[in-house]
């Protein structure tokens, strides 16, 4: 089966534009990129599913001329899910605006901090368990006491004085 050049070009352009926007920092641009890529992917799905045909409705179309209904069902849910994701990302953009007054996706502060410390050869984590012990085993043992029973009243030994 031969491919349809118009659709192929459309798919290519949608993906290219989508990726270009996807790599941006502004969350709303990223989102627009995602939607463009989603459109391209939906179209790719249809193209991969087979040639164009008549609507897949029994009775309205003779069976041989129908387009493939399976990719259509999948794409249909994909379209609606894109809506859900759009709303979610926009809510995130709004939240980001609430907190930071912009919707830019910044670099992770913690990751950058680790990179900075590693570059300066400083410790990135404080982990007391790996420090060289300041105390000897004996000193540590002297401090470790169980919560033991009191026992009978103490008696001072005679003769030791």
């Amino acid at each position, binding site marked *: 089966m031969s491919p349809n050049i118009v659709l192929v070009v459309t798919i290519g352009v949608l993906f290219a534009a989508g990726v270009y926007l996807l790599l941006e920092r502004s969350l709303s641009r990223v989102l627009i990129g995602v939607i463009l890529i989603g459109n391209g992917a939906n179209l790719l799905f249809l193209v991969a599913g087979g040639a164009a045909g008549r609507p897949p409705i029994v009775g309205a179309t003779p069976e041989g001329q129908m387009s493939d209904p399976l990719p259509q069902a999948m794409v249909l849910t994909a379209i609606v899910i894109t809506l859900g994701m759009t*709303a979610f990302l926009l809510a995130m953009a709004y939240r980001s605006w609430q907190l930071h007054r912009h919707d830019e996706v910044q670099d992770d502060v913690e990751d950058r901090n680790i990179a900075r410390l590693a570059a300066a050869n400083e410790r990135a984590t404080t982990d007391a368990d790996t420090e060289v012990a300041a105390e000897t085993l004996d000193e540590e043992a002297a401090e470790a006491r169980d919560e033991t029973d009191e026992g009978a009243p103490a008696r001072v030994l005679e003769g030791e004085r």
Partner: protein
Amino acid sequence: MLLLLAVHLAAAVVAPALLNWMGRKAFWVLALAPASAAVWALTWTSQVQAGNGPVEQLEWIPVLGLELTFRLDTLSWLMTLVVGGVGALVLIYCAAYFKSSASGLGRFGGVFVAFSGSMLGLVAADDLLLMFVFWELTTVTSYVLIGHYAERKASRRAAMQAIVITTAGGLAMLVGLVLLGEAAGTFRLSEVIADPPQGTTTVTVAIVCLLAGAVTKSALIPFHFWLPAAMAAPTPVSAYLHAAAMVKAGVYLVARFAPAYSTTPVWQWIVISLGCGTMLLGGYRALRQHDLKLILAFGTVSQLGLIVLLVGLGTRATALAGLAMLGAHAMFKAALFLVVGVVDAATGTRDLRRLSGVGRELKLTALAGALATASMIGLPPFAGYVAKEAGLEAVGHLDAPVGTIVLVAVAVGSALTVAYGLRLWWGAFSTKPAVVPEAVVESAESTAPGTSIHEAAHDEAEPARITHPSLLLVWPAMILAVLGLAVALLPQLGEHLLEPYAATYPEGEPGHLVLWAGLTPTFVLTLAILLAGALLFLVRDRVERWQTAAYHGPEADRVYRRFMRRLDDVAADVTAVTQRGSLPLYLGLILIVFVVAVGGTALGSTVFPTQFTFWDNPAQLVFAAGTIVSALLVTRARRRLKAVILLGIGGYSMAGLYLLHGAPDLALTQVLVETVTLVVFVLVLRRLPPYFSDRPLAASRWVRLGLGVAVGLTVAGIALVAPSARIHLPVSTDFAQEAVTFGGGKNIVNVTLVDIRAWDTMGEISVLLVAATGVASLVFLSRRGGAIYRADEARVDRAVWGGTADPMAALRRPGGDSAAVDAGGMVADRDESAVPSSASRGREWLQAGRTLAPQRRSVIFEVVVRLLFHTMIVYSVYLLFSGHNAPGGGFAAGLVTGIALIVRYLAGGRYELGEAAPVQPGLLLGLGLFLSAGVGLLALLAGGEVLQSWIFDIHLPVIGDLHLVTSLFFDIGVYLVVVGLVLDILRSLGAEIDRRAETGEDPVGGDAAGGDVDGDVPAQVAAGAKPAGWDGGVP
């Protein structure tokens, strides 16, 4: 066996409640669990001796061939006795040892019993993987037990060290077990031992890995240091885990595999070098310690070296001696730990420099300690003597030169044992002339840690005071100590019972356990050992001083900590390189991999089609051009609204392409979704700055462009190749016929959604539900949804979407249905009642139209909405019901209803939305998912499969024939979920943001133009008057 494990599990689970209820007496009840294991093992004694031990088997995961297989042979029998017996005694000891008010007793009791059960499973398991599971369970439970005093740093550190080392070894062991099981073709332990795979490199690697597990678990060098550090655990834990049970797991592993592999050179090398080295190092270090528990800990390290050595050497005689030593060690070492616990409880210290006269006060304790010490140093007639004598005899018969080296090492190690054993008893119980008072101890410690007793002696020295702890504390130790004497008096019985295990070794003459074998060279050696040890004890001060002065090399503990620190640093370096925290970078990497992998394959090994069609229908060209042009323009748009509108144009063009491709359902859905998307964008965009922030990074822009083009070309390549790449018939060839016969519908796409692939759809509507909940949570933050705004609850002053001054205020009719507005935007119409009279409401086109600020109302819009709304609802119901046979269905119907709600909201504000849909969206979402999934489950009751459809043809008198398919309920569920999603979006991104703008919680969008970050903005707005303007997207 399974029953015993269940008993342990049950005891562990109820332990916290039990200890809470009965107090520390509950330890008596808990002791029943390990005791039952010991008694059970005793009842099987004769059968096990005859080689007919019980075998139990239960299928666990049949697909993976995993079984719960247990078996009791001589080795397991002995270990079960040790684990169960000592466990029960230690638990009884706990009942008197801890203060009634001691913290964390519930957890302690539960984990202790759980450990005991894991240990039981470990020694009885007859499956390599099952054994590993129990092995790791002991690791985890021991971690909790060592770290019992979690608030102490030393305790946490010791626990962490122990689990890191033993888990590392355990993982190595897992590799070994898997290699071994694969090489042998079975994971049944007894079968692997009976017919061990030999000779290959795989087996050598497996042996090394196995021994790594044993070495870490049994604290052999170079991993011995975790055991002394683990003395931070409560003393009962030390008595059980670090004398009888946990550290013996490694010994058990060596003993288990020794009959199969003890002749392998790599095994011999590891066992002999590490065994001898550990024995000598442990004994040497024990001579210098001042804390009684530390003496015992290093002593245990030393003894473990000896036992591993004996068991692993590989002759029958050494194996018998090793097993005897294992039993004897469990008795005397556990007893000694318990005795030290008594001393600790009585005096409040374990520092032998502060103890004096304890023996005179606590005579029974001293006696128990003396008996156990005698067994440890190998005095006749104690179990330790019998075992060590057999060991020396057996080692003496080994071939030179290895035999000689081992004999010398064992002799020296035994002499060291005698010395530290005597020192221990002397330190704990003797009446010493000079004792260091506490204050001096501390100052002495800080200056010279190794100060010996006489150097640090002080004129005003005063020993620690002694109380009399409960006698109950002494009996468990006494029982174990006396047992060490009793079994030694019947050495033939021990030999008889343990001999079947030794017989499994392929080499050597059978050994013997005897009390008196005459004046043999071995006996002379024993005498020499005792004498040398006693001498070492007499010159203990000089030894201590010498050890302090002598260089003792890099300590393993320090090396370990440095290593861990380096590991942390390396981890940070790797993180710094790989995890840059930049989203574009991550996405870019993923896309590059995609281009290289897929594009590379496509270029390299794909035949591109030579025939093309340019279009199926010339109209495609128009819509494609619309899509392409809008996509290109979107990338260049600097204004947000422009980008969004261009995106919408592209989306509508997509709908055209779908329609021309023969997919009317898709086209319908796409148009509806695009409309909703546009509205959602605008709702949020009114908060965001109008322009995208400038990012003058030209270089990165070219990189992005390049990557975008590369991905576009790759995907276009896929699109070229994919249509002709099909080699099978489509799954959907029969869908048309199936849809009518089983699904009862003519629209195949819809039947596919609600019936043929209903599971997919259910997953997808779940995603919608999650997304809707996510939106609501991100906006409402602390609640699932806000209040439902009803028109009669609205504020009288009609402020919805107010804000700006009303330029037309002067023209409005005062009173009546309009309001007087002051210059600052404050609306003041006190004459109006909160609830409009029915008469005045009757004149309104929309129920909540009056809640809007006057300047925001549009009569034409309200009229249109009034006329459209119900029409749209009816249309959506039509789509819902006809969807089975014509384009439409739940998704499209839900979207139409959603748009109807959107229109109501846009025309009348949030109160109008509340009037239009006075329900919580969560209810719609939940109900929808329930209808889809729940009705699907009903089919199960009717004897079908989940989500199977049933078709009913009913004749109704007036209406006519009704063709009802149960999947309609599924579609209604889909409908409700979609409506819930749109309603959630409107209520959170619409109504809630409105409310915040009005109350001043959010500053209004225009304020933050250009993306300036200014923390004062909200404060200013809250403090200032009213929001300055509403930059809305409503026409």
